[in-house]
């Protein structure tokens, strides 16, 4: 029972959603609308599970004073503070999401800054990695290196100053060799996804059930 019911739900749901995509009829649309209404509700339950699990793991670390347990506070405090500030804290006390609320301040001046900083640091690491790892060790590595240099220069105005033809070479690399390789990868991934989805819908692939019913 534990296996059969989930398998049936997946099979019926999977086939239904697959078929409705190709049927432009009001009944088909009604089925889809119902699914769209259900999906966020189911996702909300997953969110509750996720928050619960995260809270349990970090509360456990704090309780046991595990290594770097202090950082668990950095996870738990914002996790609860942000929704409380946005939805539960009274607007009269700087609650809500509109400026100049505390939530808005935290988002614009803490979260945005942190994420931007993290991404900006890529430039520093890429420069260091390029210096240490980008070697013309073989013919293929040399081709890769030259392509990278041409595309990098072609993407910035200095490439135009070298010559109008220079960015064109970079664009040619992107539009043809790059495109061919990307298309091959995408087709491979696409067929793989199709095969895996069909295996799941028809119950051939059952790993997603975990150990249920065993």
């Amino acid at each position, binding site marked *: 029972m534990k296996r059969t019911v989930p398998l049936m739900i997946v099979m019926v749901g999977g086939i239904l959603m697959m078929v409705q995509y190709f049927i432009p009829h009001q009944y088909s649309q009604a089925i889809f609308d119902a699914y769209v209404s259900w999906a966020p509700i189911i996702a909300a339950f997953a969110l509750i599970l996720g928050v619960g699990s995260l809270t349990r793991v970090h509360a456990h670390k704090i309780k046991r004073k595990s290594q770097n347990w202090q950082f668990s506070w950095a996870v738990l405090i914002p996790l609860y503070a942000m929704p409380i500030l946005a939805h539960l804290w009274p607007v009269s006390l700087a609650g809500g999401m509109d400026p100049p609320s505390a939530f808005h301040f935290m988002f614009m001046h803490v979260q945005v800054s942190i994420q931007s900083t993290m991404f900006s640091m890529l*430039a520093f690491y890429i420069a260091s990695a390029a210096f240490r790892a980008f070697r013309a060790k073989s013919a293929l590595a040399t081709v890769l290196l030259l392509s990278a240099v041409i595309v990098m220069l072609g993407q910035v105005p200095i490439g135009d100053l070298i010559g109008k033809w220079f960015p064109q070479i970079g664009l040619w690399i992107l539009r043809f060799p790059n495109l061919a390789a990307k298309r091959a990868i995408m087709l491979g991934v696409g067929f793989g996804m199709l095969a895996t989805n069909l295996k799941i819908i028809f119950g051939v692939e059952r790993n997603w059930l975990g150990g249920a019913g065993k």
Partner: protein
Amino acid sequence: MSAVNIWERMLNIDRRWIFLSIGVISIVPFLTKIGMPVSTTDEVESIFNYVDSLGKENAIFIGFDYDPGTQAENTPMGVAVMRHAFHNNVSVFLTAYTPLGHGMAGGALDYVTNPAVPGYYSRVDFSQWADLRDAGVTDKDELVAAWEAAGHELPEGSSGWVFEGRDFAYLGYAPLFYLVILGMTASIEAQYHQDANENPLSEMPMLREHKSLREVDLAVTVSGSSACTAWVIYGREKIGLPVAFGVTAVSATDYYPYIQSGQIIGQMGGLRGAAEYEVLLKEHGITETTDKAFTGMDVQSADHILIILFIIIGNIAYFMGGFHKQKSLKGRG
């Protein structure tokens, strides 16, 4: 000290020197403002020309489908397209694929309508023009005439009026956004009953004229991840919605197949793509100046040159020191 040691020392240089040089070279162009020319590519021109062909009877979606990490690249793209649409009186729906993108969309709208920013658009909130709406004035030209006749004067430096509900609707984030796109192919209002400012969509003139994605002319998805492909899968492939991408430089290479197949009309790749759009806006007299992306291109030029220099120096040291004959390097990694 032997020659080999010099090369080895060079290869094992403290990485903090590299970090410092990148830091310095990134700051200097901001101070000097060189303003090197940026040429435009077909990929960006096709988006520009498409938006330029639209008018007040048309509507577009701009999806702010990215998180703050990539805002330096992505936000100027959304801002540039929004300015172009506002200039042509095209209605703009602002959406977000992620919760953090919701804030990015709001930030971009605030930037375009901020009086402190050159070439800003004067924003009229939904409640402010309720009387005109109730009187049935929704055509943009008539609306502007009636609004100004009511005693409102366009501030100096403003590029024009933008009316919430007629020129833009800030829809923001909705969970499981790929399903939202699918749902909007039948009805936008079924997915969003109200906008991010809690204004009812049913009362918005732009919603009455554009009820679903089938009545929308373009979706520009500005993205830092593969979220942009959802617009192709569920918008383009199902109902033929024209889609354009604005993606980060690192992921731009992934989407060239979509251009060649005709699934998207064009692509802004990284800061360069945004700078190209800004240049096109200026060349066509839509804006008086370029903006942040164009300024950022000088920084990118300097950084790319430095990184290439590092690669060249690293390879010289590698070969001159004879390390290509060894299996591994000694010293720090």
